[in-house]
């Protein structure tokens, strides 16, 4: 059935549609996961960064992380005060809709352009994430109870790092996989699967 579809003329359109659809996965799964491990937390403390929200294993995880962070003078992580969580969802929806329009166009260039925009947006997103991590890790209250000269608390973008007693592990989560799929499907749609004229 699927192979039938693939040999048809419209296989590149189909993959372009799939790429657009994949973006909806960002609303179903978190993009990134930051895990904090310490002796007193046998199950770890897990924070999930979504396209539109920040969550934890329980509704109170964020509060618990903030309580820990206040000892080192870190600002409270308040999802409401992070504007990206409000407009990134729209960017994703617009990209997805654009992708559908592109799928019905006949210009290969549009397929490529959509892919490049998505890639740029992805890189910008990661850079933005890095900036927030930098801000939380460096912009510390001068009145913090625990002040260790030279110590900053920026979690890694990828991989693990000891932050005092906590081992912080930062890794992409399922949402990023969907983003990856979107890029791969888009790439296939204008390369291997593009119908040679």
């Amino acid at each position, binding site marked *: 059935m699927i192979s039938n579809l693939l040999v048809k003329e419209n296989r590149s359109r189909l993959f372009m549609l799939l790429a657009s659809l994949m973006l909806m996965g960002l609303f179903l799964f978190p993009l990134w996961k930051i895990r904090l491990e310490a002796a007193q937390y046998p199950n770890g403390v897990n924070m999930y960064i979504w396209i539109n929200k920040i969550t934890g294993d*329980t*509704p*109170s995880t964020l*509060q*618990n992380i903030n*309580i820990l962070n206040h*000892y080192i003078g870190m600002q409270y992580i308040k999802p409401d005060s992070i504007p990206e969580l409000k407009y990134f969802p729209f960017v994703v929806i617009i990209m997805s809709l654009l992708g559908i329009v592109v799928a019905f166009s006949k210009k290969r260039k549009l397929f490529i352009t959509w892919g490049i925009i998505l890639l740029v947006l992805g890189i910008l997103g990661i850079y933005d994430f890095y900036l927030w991590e930098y801000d939380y890790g460096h912009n510390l209250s001068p009145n913090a*109870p*625990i002040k260790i000269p030279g110590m900053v608390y920026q979690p890694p973008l990828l991989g693990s790092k000891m932050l005092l007693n906590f081992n912080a592990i930062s890794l992409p989560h399922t949402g990023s996989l969907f983003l990856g799929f979107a890029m791969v499907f888009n790439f296939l749609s204008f390369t291997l699967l593009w119908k040679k004229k």
Partner: protein
Amino acid sequence: MEKSKFKWLAYLFIMGFIVSACGDNSKQQSKGAFGDQDVASQVYVSPGEYDEFYAFMSGGFSGQVSVYGLPSGRLFKVIPVFSVDAEKAYGFNEETKPMLNTSLGFIPWDDSHHPELSQTNGVPDGRWLFINGNNTPRVARIDLTTFETAEILEIPNSGGNHSSPFITENSEYLVAGTRFSVPIPQKDVSIKSYKENFKGSLSYIKIADDGEMSVAFQILVPGYDYDLAHSGKGKSHGWTFFTTYNTEESNTLLEIGASQRDKDYIAAVNWKKAEEYIAAGKAKTMPANYAHNTYDEHSHMAKSEMLKEVKVLIPQECPGLIYYLPTPKSPHGVDVDPSGEYIVGNGKLSSDLTVHSFSKMLKAIENDDFDDEVDGIPVINFESVVAGSVKSTGLGPLHTEFDGKGNAYTTFFISSEVIKWKIGTWEVLDRVPSYYSVGHLMIPGGDSKAPFGKYLVSLNKITKDRFLPTGPELTQSAQLFDITGDKMKLLLDFPTIGEPHYAQAIPADIIMKNSVKYYKLDENKHPHKITSEDEAKVVRKGNVVRVYMSSIRSHFAPDNIEGVKVGDKVYFHLTNLEQDWDVPHGFAVMGARTSEILVMPGQTETLVWEPQNPGVYPFYCTDFCSALHQEMQGYIRVSPKNSKVELKWSVGEFDE
């Protein structure tokens, strides 16, 4: 050839020596290195690993319940039930004081004897644990998701609630029989008029689907001492058996007076018949006055209400409701085997155990095979009901439990031992000493339809030389035996809280998955809670000052309070805003004539403080909650009665 034969002989000789040495060692309670190592590995639970069973032990005269792990014998928690507990503020904070209310007012102590797990289909289900209060007759229910006392029900028309709270196989009822008969209703009569005026009562407590208890009905019975009970199971479901002593109805020097008759009775109550009589309107309503106390885990508060009447059944008016089974020598425990057929009477002044047959009992009832009648209660012919007896066993049998493999285990107080015997053949299979004077014993699920088996715990009243001495007052103890083999094997001695009167145990996995980690703040319905630090405030109404306070690592809000005056009554309503596992905060203020409070995450508790002298008084967190726990402190200023210092409060207002 000759040489190798000699080698063989030498080898056999050495092996025989080792084997006999090991044999000797095991007889002497395994003092040998091999034996001890083997035993140690059986009770060793590696750090960070879990025990296989929860054991709930009564505290006896401590009034509480203690929670141990088996096989390690490690103590996890003492649950305050009938006695105040300053550590946990039970009976000290405003929220839990109503739990200890009775028709006689606030009572800070009782004697807790028999923990009883709720059952479904005759097997412990891990929802609730019930326990009786002996002195001021009460029954308590402990919620096994929070391990806290959720309810206490006073039993009217009772004196000494000892034969309690034995449960029916689907937790329909638990029972509460009077150990001490009293005038019912209470009245001022001569003690010598015992035979004429004193009555016993057997109460049936209905357990609702949510666990809530109510006195469904009471049966007024002759003035004996109703000592212990067990409900039937399987074929005998629908019946309860109570032992009696003092059928002599003596009112003094009972050690002589109540030991004269050769046989006392086991009372067999057909509670399904009782339900029919109630439905038919046969019950009388008697005025009464008894407390029903419930703790709400959402408001974190207890309330006490007084109930004013009780339904009573009189045996003379209800034929078929109750029968007496003659049983030798002041029987103590009455235990029903897993099949429900055998009813074991542990005649405490005897050396033999008497076992009755349920089916023979039904037949005798059908044939009107009665010897006598007491106040409308037929006494069944002994020979027609007895199934057999376990002979020359020991001295002073008290209690029996079962392993589900056809064996029974009975404790002997006087000869200080546990005896294993076979159901049906009544032959004694094994006996081990206990150190010393064992009362109850416990096998996980051992009084249920399907015992979990594996271990036996004997609960000893006397320890003498078993542990390091601690002055004249010594601990009582529990002894753990392995019962998986043919012979019982002693594994471990461990000390207990108060008197480990009786215990019940259940596989850990039934309970641990339901254990609450913290209370949800958004489900907190306490009338004086706050849900964030912004709501912290101090309110005065006349001389009542309410401090709406929060705690979170590592500070209180407010932590500076001024404007309180001598003569005020200050209520500290402390809400723990934490929403994480194992982050309690405590609170104590200098000079409070009460205990600390210890507040779990999401919970609100109240400490009342009546300052007596002007000054500035510190308060602080009593639970080492966090890295800056020592900094978790504050001050409250007290001014003279007529001072004009205005009420104000703050947290984190640093000087410029």
